């Protein structure tokens, strides 16, 4: 991928609201070239979505997130993909990763409460034929996500004027 595209992605990763004009200025590039690169990346699904990083801890809504280690028997001919798809199509599932190591899939689940997550695991996930075992870990607190520290204590301690 071109350097321009990588630079654009880095700037959008920091703040997806940045306009093509601002990005072009910051990179010293032509705004049309930047616009075109963004369109291409949107078309190719390199840029999948412009989403917001949210610290749900600060919202009063109750919300539970769990990471579930899933061991499965891969399906002949389709490997892990078929079972992964059966899992990720559930709207409760936030992310699914194929992992190296002692289990196969890492599944992130969102639920309103502990009970909802537990019921999803026991009713939907473990009952799938190829699922051998599950191990559920509830997330107690998120410190950092997608490179963003939620409770950043490193404020700006500089004097407002210095030589």
């Amino acid at each position, binding site marked *: 991928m071109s350097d321009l595209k990588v630079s654009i992605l880095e*700037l959008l990763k920091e703040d997806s609201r940045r306009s093509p004009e601002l990005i072009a*200025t910051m*990179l010293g590039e032509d705004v049309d070239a930047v616009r075109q690169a963004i369109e291409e990346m949107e078309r190719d699904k390199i840029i999948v979505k412009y989403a917001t990083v949210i610290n749900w801890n600060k919202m009063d809504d109750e919300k539970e997130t769990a990471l579930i280690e899933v061991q499965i028997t891969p399906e002949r001919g389709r490997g892990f993909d078929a079972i992964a798809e059966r899992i990720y199509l559930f709207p409760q599932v936030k992310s699914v990763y194929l992992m190296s190591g002692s289990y196969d899939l890492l599944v992130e689940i969102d639920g309103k409460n502990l009970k909802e997550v537990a019921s999803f695991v026991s009713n939907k996930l473990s009952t799938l034929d190829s699922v051998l075992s599950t191990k559920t870990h509830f997330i107690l607190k998120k410190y950092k996500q997608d490179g963003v520290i939620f409770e950043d204590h490193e404020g700006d301690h500089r004097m*407002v*004027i*210095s*030589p």
Partner: protein
Amino acid sequence: MIKQEQEQQTRSMERYLSPAVRNIPPSGIRKFFDLVSGSKDIISLGVGEPDFVTPWLVREACVYSLEQGRTSYTHNAGLPELREEIANYLHKRFNLTYEPSRQIIVTVGGSEAIDLALRAILVPGDEIIVPEPTYVSYSPITALCGGVAVPVQTYARDNFKLTAEALKQKLTPKTKALILSYPSNPTGGIMGYEDYLPIAKLVEEHDLLVITDEIYAELTYGANHVSFASLPGMKDRTIVISGFSKAFAMTGWRIGYACGHPDLVAAMLKIHQYTIMCAPVMAQVAAIESLRNGLEEKDRMVEAYNQRRRLVVKGFRDIGLDCHEPQGAFYAFPSIQSTGLTSQEFAERLLLEGKVAAVPGDVFGLGGEGYIRCSYATSVNNLLEALERIHKFVQKIRMF
């Protein structure tokens, strides 16, 4: 009554002061700082230091060293490992070769190194040439040593480069040294190899010493930094001063260094050992880590400065303020002459009416009047908001 007497006594203490100290004019920046301190909701473009915190790996290395009990004095000239790392780094980055044992001294920031260099060489009456506008400490320290700082003005039309013609006019039989400070605070100007060649020729002809403050060496955009000491024949007559503050976002650690001919370094070490003893060991340990493992983080910061630099320069030009292209440091130095205000008026009114702090250019000496120094070491969102406010402010001034 008693209070009055006390005040009188306090005032009368001035008679004990050295005239050299008494004659140093109060800092223009200090005055402006006091004004800014009372203001609320301002965005500051007045800060002369990185907005990044020191990279965590550097801080962590320091914490670890404290846990290990590394709290003692070091060699006067600094930890041998650190001097070794500095030598390797200068060689790789700027093609400078110094012997760690005799040619490098670790100091409490670049500031101490400036003081050491000037104190080591100056005899009362000596003249030191200082291209201006420039960082504020060279002239006062020169004066403290009984020397005379001779300013030579540089201009936006030359991108604030020092020219041989301008330098030549200031040379007298009393001229002992030339101070160079590129990349420049406050102008962002840099000097390339070709720019330095005619300067080097004059330096040679007039047998001058050169003190080059290269603290912003890592922060150049589009052109690599050239150290004056790397010019043919200049190494022995040049004291290179640099440090970790700007490149590695380590201003508060106060850690820098000076390199030069062994005779010069030995003289500087004499002053250093009796005044400072050694730079703080924890800062030295952190500096080692920054050179060994912090270079990638440094590159990331430099890239961020470059993006902001493009943003502010375009921003000022869009507002209708002339702004030369700064190629180094993290300052833009736009001209505010078209507003009809002086630097002080502009900066003061911008602060009070526009809620943006910038440093009036006149505090940086000759040629600074008519400009303001705007640091872009702050977040993109802050810069966008500041530019918006400056735009409104300038529009308002132009209407009346």
